[in-house]
């Protein structure tokens, strides 16, 4: 897995239950090194997993949270970001790819701007991992989180990558077996990396399966896969643009294989149930991004998320169904 994200050392990989736990781990451990008044920058298009742990930390330790706004097209406003950065900024945490808008963020630029200000960078790679060649050195990621289940792997495992010298300087997260060096009745010493952050019995089967999924992704040419999914999304977008009642969420120039949309007068849950009857599994709801839904002025949307197994024919069939949906519902 170290190779999969481009890490220099194997001990820079901490196994977690997923992206959510990876971010919570960092919010706790890095959080303990922060002072009241320190600032963390997030974006308006984050998944709840990259908002709520920081809000919990903010409430515990008096940290100030700031958010990079998005344009109506779903692009991050980097001018405002530049103004949000200041000497109290300790961390910038953002997604590599929005799970609603499909926007691919300019990660290297965001990271470079943070580093210029002396801030650390956490990248949420949950969406990007199955369709992007990840290289933490090149991206400038001090920390990076991902989940195996988004990579055609098992549920219940993911990882946190962290630069070795940074992880070494952080206090442990959960206490228990494996994470200790020595324990007495008076106290304990923490184990070395990565065990310091991996308390309790590890999910061994899941870890092996995650590595198998990563091997498979690397064997199919991740870059080509990412382009294929983006092309499927573009094909659906072109078809949706011919349906006046459909509003597509997000028009970023750089896009992944995700297309979220609303159909006027039809609730997303009804629409998705209708599509499900024809074998199309879309998700309906706010996609774990309430603040983004509010920013877009919607309650819920339907989301097509293309993967390696999808075909051009399926995109065309979906577009045809959507053309009929308004009359059928």
């Amino acid at each position, binding site marked *: 897995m170290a190779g999969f994200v481009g890490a220099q050392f194997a001990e820079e990989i901490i196994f977690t239950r997923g992206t959510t736990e990876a971010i919570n781990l960092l919010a706790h451990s890095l959080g303990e090194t922060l002072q009241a008044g320190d600032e963390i920058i997030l974006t308006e298009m984050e998944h709840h997993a990259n908002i709520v742990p920081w809000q919990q930390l903010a409430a515990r330790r008096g940290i100030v949270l700031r958010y990079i706004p998005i344009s109506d097209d779903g692009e991050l406003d980097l001018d405002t970001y530049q103004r949000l950065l200041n000497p109290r900024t300790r961390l910038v945490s953002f997604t590599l790819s929005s799970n609603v808008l499909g926007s691919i963020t300019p990660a290297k630029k965001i990271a470079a701007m943070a580093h210029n200000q002396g801030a650390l960078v956490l990248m949420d790679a949950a969406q990007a991992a199955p369709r992007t060649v990840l290289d933490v050195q090149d991206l400038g990621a001090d920390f990076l989180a991902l989940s195996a289940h988004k990579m055609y792997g098992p549920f219940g495992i993911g990882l946190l990558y962290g630069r070795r010298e940074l992880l070494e300087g952080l206090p442990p997260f959960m206490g228990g077996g494996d994470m200790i060096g020595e324990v007495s009745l008076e106290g304990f010493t923490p184990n070395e990396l990565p065990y310091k952050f991996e308390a309790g019995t590890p999910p061994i089967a899941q870890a092996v399966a995650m590595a198998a999924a990563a091997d498979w992704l690397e064997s199919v040419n991740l870059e080509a896969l990412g382009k294929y999914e983006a092309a499927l999304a573009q094909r659906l977008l072109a078809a949706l643009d011919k349906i006046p009642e459909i509003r597509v969420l997000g028009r970023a120039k750089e896009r992944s294989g995700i297309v979220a949309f609303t159909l006027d007068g039809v*609730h*997303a*849950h*009804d629409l998705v*149930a*209708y599509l499900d*009857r024809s074998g199309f599994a879309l998700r*309906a*709801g*706010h996609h774990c991004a309430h603040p983004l*839904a509010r920013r877009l002025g919607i*309650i*819920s949307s339907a989301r097509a998320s293309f993967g390696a197994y999808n075909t051009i024919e399926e995109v065309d069939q979906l577009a045809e169904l959507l053309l009929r949906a308004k009359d059928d*519902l």
Partner: protein
Amino acid sequence: MSDPFDSIYEEIIRDRYKKPRRRRVLDGLPFVENPSCGDRVRVSIKVGDDGTITDAAFDGNGCSISMSSADILATDLIGKTPEAARALIERFLAVLRGELDVDELDELGDAAAFKGIARLPVRVKCAALAWRAALDAL
């Protein structure tokens, strides 16, 4: 499992969703929300001098399941005592929780339209929303 959008049930749900009988604006009442999808509904219940419910109405926004369910609920409550209304609601919710057999709904008029939904975990909350709001209102 029967298709939740099947035949007669689909007709009842669609009809109630498109042409609700008991829907009107209910300013000032609190909404009950389904946080997983953002649907929300509020229910107003008035008890007359004879101790039975003389008026029931709902207001809100949501999918066809949550809105048609609210309309059926409001219609069914009229003429019942608050005790009988509570018993009806508890029975309906018990079916949705899987504690009672779905065939129980056959005795509940148009609420039988939700027999298919009752075994669809992702939509049960939609069907239950207004009924939970009514319990609060009673």
